[in-house]
């Protein structure tokens, strides 16, 4: 499947003392939800912050909405006005702000912010009630989950074309994760010409699977796999086999884990014929199985090496 890119990253590189991000090429597809998946410290947040313009010093280039450069992002209001960013930063909203103040400040910061819509979303998400006291609640008194809802309401109350969300699902309860997925689906579906896109990072792969169209797996600062989920599910097969075949299968499988009874892992579809003589059970991998398998193949965690 081919799609126009909402964001293109080319030859991105950023060095820290103990970490280096090196991205040769990523084209985030326009009109879809893209999940950035990877271990802690893999570089997901750094990449999202670069795209959002929070971290501006790096090598390489990022193109926005097909033809805007990073310089345009700083000089042409169109780019930032059409990107909604939610981060993991605890001070995204300063703790002493009241909910009423979050609305006032966002009205000043973003021209396309709709205060009434913001109030409505907050009420729908049960962060506030219509009472006055609810709006005087301070950000510091909110739970982590409610803070995420507050950020979410902020970006959804704007007329944006792209949502960048760093770990939006992590602090949310299962019910709210499901609600988040449906809100993202509604957001994607709400534009007539299919020009709204979402990019989010997540560790909650299975919860976010039903909203993920495109997946990018990052390990140790580099992209190790990317593609539409449906294409990846065709590229890999999930295999379960018996203990007796483990040694032989080890050389064919892309990644493998074993226990007392047998083994399981990912196999490239092109290699599946090589397992023909073995007693194996194959299935289409879930996104979680895919991501974990691919991450395991590249991890620096000693227990997997």
């Amino acid at each position, binding site marked *: 499947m081919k799609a126009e890119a909402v964001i293109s990253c080319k030859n991105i590189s950023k060095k820290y003392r103990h970490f280096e991000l090196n991205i040769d090429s990523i084209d985030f597809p326009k009109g879809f939800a893209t999940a950035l998946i990877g271990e802690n410290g893999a570089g997901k947040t750094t990449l999202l912050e670069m795209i*959002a*313009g*929070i*971290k*501006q*010093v790096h090598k390489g280039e990022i193109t926005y909405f097909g033809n805007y450069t990073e310089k345009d992002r700083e000089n042409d*209001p169109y780019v*930032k*006005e059409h*990107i909604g*960013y939610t*981060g993991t*930063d*605890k*001070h*995204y*909203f*300063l703790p*002493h*702000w009241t909910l009423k*103040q979050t609305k*006032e*400040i*966002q009205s*000043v*910061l*973003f*021209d396309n912010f709709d205060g009434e819509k913001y109030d409505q979303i907050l009420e729908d998400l049960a962060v506030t009630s219509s009472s006055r006291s609810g709006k005087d609640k301070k950000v510091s008194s909110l739970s982590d989950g409610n803070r995420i809802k507050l*950020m979410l309401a*902020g970006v959804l109350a704007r007329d944006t074309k792209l949502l960048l969300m760093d770990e939006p699902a992590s602090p949310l309860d299962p019910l709210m994760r499901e609600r988040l997925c449906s809100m993202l689906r509604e957001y994607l579906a709400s534009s007539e010409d299919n020009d709204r896109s979402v990019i989010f990072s997540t560790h909650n792969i299975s919860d976010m699977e039903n909203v993920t169209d495109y997946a990018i797996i990052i390990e140790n600062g580099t992209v190790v796999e990317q593609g539409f989920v449906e294409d990846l599910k065709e590229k890999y097969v999930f295999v379960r086999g018996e203990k007796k075949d483990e040694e032989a299968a080890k050389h064919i499988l892309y990644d493998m884990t074993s226990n007392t009874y047998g083994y399981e892992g990912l196999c490239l579809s092109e290699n599946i014929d090589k397992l023909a003589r073995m007693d194996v059970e194959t299935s289409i991998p879930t996104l979680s199985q895919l991501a974990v398998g691919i991450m395991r193949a590249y991890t620096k965690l000693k227990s997997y090496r």
Partner: protein
Amino acid sequence: MKHLSRMITAHNCFCSFLYNIAMLVIMPALLVPFALVIMSFDNYLGIVIMMTLLSCFTLLADYMPFNGITAKGFFLGIIKTSTHVDNFMKDAIIADQIRRFIQIAIPPILSLIIAIISSFNGIDIRFLTFISTIIFLNYSITTGIITFMRNILSNNVHAYISLTLTAIIGALNSGMMFLFLHDSIHIPFMIWLPITFILSVIISIFAFSYTTDRCFTNIKEY
């Protein structure tokens, strides 16, 4: 009017309602009676001690709203992602400087008004000039110091440096009192008012450009 409202929003983004009450109401309410007691013995000494304490509290309190705003890695959260980040920060910093001037001017002016109403001795043109001069002097020093102190993220380091610098502010205030009171000094006292006024203007401009430059540089270099 709309710009004023944006300025207040930007200011309140950093300075909470409680902070404003503490700085503009509670602090004068505590400092003015204290100063008046000392002024009943010596007008100048009362003002010097009050202004030194006021500057100390101003330095210490600035950590709460603006701690580390010009330091590398300071989180500006949502503000960083806005197109209006530059104007928003400029508004916040200008409003903060205006608030700080009011905060420093209220206690001595209130003390002076009460002293006049209570018919304290020695309220003359020299004392009025001294009060105006000391307001500008303390505003200049605190603004200058705060500008650099906003590079410090650690509360302990910030508090230690604030208290150390308070001793210097005390010495400068006493020095100004000396210049006003000692006849052996042949410099007309009136000259200190325009000098401290000009100093306030220069430091305000410097503080504004340094803070705005640094907090945007921080975003760009981080």
